[in-house]
């Protein structure tokens, strides 16, 4: 029984693009409002979407960056898939609007994926399968979120905004070639949001051992064993990042060094971008990687599961990565806001 997933046709990343809104709130500002401690906060600051931004608009900009690097006609896309837990509509796809804005509408699949923070890599797995089966040459997979955190809840410190888009296609045109992938899923209710609720519920410490660590560690260990790799075979490792502590602890337990994981660890500066978190960590790695570098990408989504991928960078990355804005551009543009403006931007003020 072969548990590693490898398409018959070789597949890779043709183009990638990141997006983070420009507003930031410091964790200390949130602590000031609720009387929390000044030290030991899970992150430094997080990104906040502007009044005119949501998962749809953010997906459009990330996807335009990905298409600029892919150098393909949007009409060549046969799928536009958006993974998120903050789709603006409860019913009506984000993906049709994203496809229309990209000039990709018409003969194209479109759909919204939902698997908490794993929705983006689930879309990536499906895009790999669509291209790998030769049903299509190009498919777009997006992970993007404007995450919700209940005021005064622990998640308010980390629920951020951002994500990334990937054009998947045939390996011969790839910036990074997929070696294989692996998924590990169980029914573990560590975090959920019921219908009509504004904010999710979570299991505090239950989100750690039985959820994040069980799935991240098992997926990574099984994948490496099945691929006959050790952490030393990778130049870079990207993990889902709900805070700074979890991915660093997981990396340490798996035998990865800080040098391998730190370039992808953006959560301290933009917050947990949920379905976008591991995928935007990956864009920052692609912005810096060299040809022949091997990259491990492991997501985690509550509910719960992890997807693991191994990619090898090609010469084409160097030629095409400056055709769009780098992740560092979005990390660098920062306009700090106080809690009052944050409350306004996140629609927490009752106006009528």
């Amino acid at each position, binding site marked *: 029984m072969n548990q590693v997933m490898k398409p018959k046709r070789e597949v890779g990343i043709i183009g990638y693009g990141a997006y983070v809104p420009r507003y930031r709130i410091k964790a200390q500002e949130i602590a000031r409002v609720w009387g929390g401690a000044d030290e030991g906060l899970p992150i430094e600051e997080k990104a906040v979407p502007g009044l*005119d931004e949501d998962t749809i608009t953010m997906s459009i900009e990330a996807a335009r960056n990905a298409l600029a690097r892919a150098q393909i006609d949007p009409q060549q896309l046969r799928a536009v898939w958006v993974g998120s837990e903050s789709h603006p509509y409860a019913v009506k796809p984000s993906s049709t609007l994203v496809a229309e804005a990209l000039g990709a509408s018409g003969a194209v699949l479109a759909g919204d994926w939902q698997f908490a923070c794993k929705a983006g890599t689930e879309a990536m797995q499906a895009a790999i399968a669509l291209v790998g089966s030769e049903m299509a040459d190009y498919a777009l997979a997006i992970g993007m979120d404007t995450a919700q955190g209940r005021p005064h809840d622990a998640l308010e410190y980390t629920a951020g905004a951002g994500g990334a888009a990937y054009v998947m296609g045939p390996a011969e045109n790839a910036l990074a070639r997929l070696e294989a992938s692996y998924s590990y899923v169980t029914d573990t209710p560590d975090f959920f949001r019921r219908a009509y609720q504004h904010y999710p519920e979570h299991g505090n410490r239950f989100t750690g051992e039985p959820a994040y660590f069980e799935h991240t560690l098992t997926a990574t260990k099984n994948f490496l064993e099945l691929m006959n790799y050790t952490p030393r075979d990778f130049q870079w490792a990207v993990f889902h990042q709900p805070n700074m502590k979890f991915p660093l602890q997981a990396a340490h337990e798996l035998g990865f060094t800080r040098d391998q994981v730190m370039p992808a660890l953006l959560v301290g500066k933009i917050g947990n971008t949920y379905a976008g978190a591991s995928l935007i960590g990956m864009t920052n790695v692609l912005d810096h990687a060299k040809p022949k570098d091997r990259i491990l990408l492991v997501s985690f989504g509550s509910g719960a599961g992890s997807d693991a991928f191994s990619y090898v960078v090609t010469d084409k990355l160097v030629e095409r990565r400056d055709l769009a804005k780098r992740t560092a551009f979005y990390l660098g*543009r920062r306009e700090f806001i106080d809690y009052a403006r944050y409350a306004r931007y996140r629609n927490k003020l009752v106006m009528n």
Partner: protein
Amino acid sequence: MAENLAPNWRLREQRYQLVGNVCLNCGAKFFPPRQVCTNCRGAEFDSFQFSGKGELYSFTTLRSAPAGFESYAPYSVGMVKLDEGPLVEAMLTDVNEDELAIGMKMEMVTRKIREEEGERGLLVYGYKFRPTS
């Protein structure tokens, strides 16, 4: 019944992608698209997608916003002279009022413009401009 679906839907191409048209007779480009060329009176056009790049021609800031836009006030609007010629009026975003200057380079982004009928209605998306980074 949800309101204003058809008029918003008809404009989706020009709003999301900045698609105007080009006169087949004299090559003049228009945004929004025209049915008769103001240059040569030609009536045959092809659609034309603008690059979204341009310069800020003029701007102002609205503190008393029209109906449907109150939640965004104060916000800046501008006239942007596109690299291909036309002058487009649009809301400006990702910029503070004191950073705006005539002649600055601008680029188009697709953003949420407003919500029809509050929380129950259609979300309307379209072009805005921000300073080019």
